[in-house]
């Protein structure tokens, strides 16, 4: 957008304690009246030295630390890591483990998208959807708590399998929950997505064109919101996602131009329903087996390096591990989806109003724990 600035630029700090920044993020806004000339994100407030620290922890001990990167979708975070180590060691897990992992990852995706939608409504000024989303998310957390004992930081996946099998009868509970939950998405649409005020605040705001999204390396729902049909689960299937029947949802630009905040938000809502479809299919395929069958006694991968990418709720999560043959990783690099979208954020904000910055920030759905690591 071409804006002629008057030249009277004021610097405004947004954050780090701003409730809409979803964590501890400081935005340095250069404003000309109400128009944002530049928005410079300052990250690092949550830096915990993850990558350096895990070089001193053995491979199995890294899993609890990966949980703490993206605390809204910890199940997907640890899944990416254990898949990377399994690829390095050449471990094949059995069918039951695979399907249980998919069920848990997709439930985690639903829970994460519910937070994204709920807090986004809260940022825009609608409080009710926030509480509804958290109520439905609570049911998913209850399943996780029953299975592994923790509500948020699961440590459920372990290298070569799962720490414990699910409790008998959990499948029926999940199916019952899905039956109740799927109509609730319609309610959420009536309450928030189709709300005229919400559309006015989000549609045609923060446009990220497909070309720009690709050149910035944006992944996940943010990329699909710009109309690019790319999903690691479809394009580079891992864990047997190719056996499942689901659609990759993309933004269609129903309200205003393509790639707006509303498109990105709506992709998440549609993805929740797709995840429900996957969970149902995975439960139908679930066969008896031992989830700790392939767990190695000693985890000591051979020399080498591996890159594994998975689709976590916020985009493509990559783990790059260099092993020197010792029981501790020589180097572990995380490719974080939120970090890459943060670089596109500055471009999206230029020329918008100050209030739109909140809209844009909520729509890209970042978790600062993962950006700073």
């Amino acid at each position: 957008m071409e804006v002629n600035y008057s030249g009277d630029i004021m610097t405004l700090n947004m954050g780090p304690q701003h409730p809409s920044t979803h964590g501890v993020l400081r935005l340095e806004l250069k404003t000309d009246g109400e128009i944002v000339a530049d928005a410079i994100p300052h990250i690092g407030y949550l830096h915990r030295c993850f990558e350096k620290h895990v070089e001193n922890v053995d491979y199995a001990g890294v899993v609890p630390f990966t949980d703490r990167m993206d605390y809204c979708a910890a199940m997907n975070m640890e899944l990416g890591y254990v898949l990377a180590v399994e690829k390095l060691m050449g471990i094949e897990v059995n069918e039951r483990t695979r399907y249980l992992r998919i069920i848990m990852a997709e439930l985690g995706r639903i829970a994460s998208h519910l937070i994204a939608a709920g807090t986004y409504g809260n940022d825009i000024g609608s409080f009710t959807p926030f509480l509804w989303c958290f109520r439905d998310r609570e049911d998913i957390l209850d399943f996780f708590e029953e299975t592994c004992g923790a509500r948020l930081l699961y440590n459920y996946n372990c290298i070569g399998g799962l720490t414990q099998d699910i409790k008998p009868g959990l499948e029926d509970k999940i199916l019952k929950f899905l039956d109740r939950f799927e109509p609730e998405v319609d309610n959420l649409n009536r309450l928030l997505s189709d709300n005229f005020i919400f559309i006015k605040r989000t549609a045609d705001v923060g446009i990220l064109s497909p070309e720009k999204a690709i050149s910035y390396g944006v992944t996940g729902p943010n990329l699909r919101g710009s109309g690019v049909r790319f999903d690691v689960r479809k394009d580079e299937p891992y864990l047997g996602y190719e056996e499942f029947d689901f659609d990759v949802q993309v933004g269609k630009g129903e309200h205003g131009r393509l790639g707006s905040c509303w498109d990105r938000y709506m992709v998440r809502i549609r993805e929740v329903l797709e995840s429900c479809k996957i969970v149902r299919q995975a439960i139908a395929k679930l066969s008896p087996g031992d989830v700790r069958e392939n767990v190695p006694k000693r985890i000591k991968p051979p020399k080498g390096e591996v890159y594994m990418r998975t689709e976590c709720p916020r985009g493509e999560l990559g783990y790059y591990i260099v092993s020197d043959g010792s029981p501790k990783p020589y180097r572990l690099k995380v490719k974080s989806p939120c970090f890459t979208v943060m670089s596109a954020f500055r471009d999206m904000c230029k020329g918008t109003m100050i209030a739109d910055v909140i809209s844009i920030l909520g729509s890209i759905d970042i978790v600062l724990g993962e950006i700073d690591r």
Partner: protein
Amino acid sequence: MLTYFRNIGQGILTIVNSMAVASRHLFKPSVTLQYPKEKWAMPERSRMRLHNKVEDCIGCGQCARTCPTDCILVKTEKRGKEEPPVFAADGTAKKLRTYVFDIDMALCCYCGLCTFACPTQCLVMTGDYEYSVYSIDEHIYHFAKEKPLIPAGSKEQSPSKG
């Protein structure tokens, strides 16, 4: 001018629509609990405070080695040959005398890796979550009951603490 009023009309319409959805919940029971008076039942696998049944502990120190945050300190010494043999509940001979078994719950990250590593299943995570204290030192739990015979020169089983 016409769009202005149309926008207001549409805004009111969607608000009425949302209110219709929301007002149905006025007549539904609440999902919250009044915490100190009412409590959730914790699931069986809850991972909260660690507890060690030290009678069954063989002092192998595997928990201390797996712990990613190094919050467990185990110190053992060999039992003398003339001493009567001691056995854990599952029949494993306790060849080592565990005279220090400290867990710093302030450092614990509640991952539960130590409980999976424990060969005699004596280290467990309980469902107890109400154990806040006034001083952080009180979070160090001392489980060992036995006293060392030879105080000096005994071997440490766990990684050294800073």
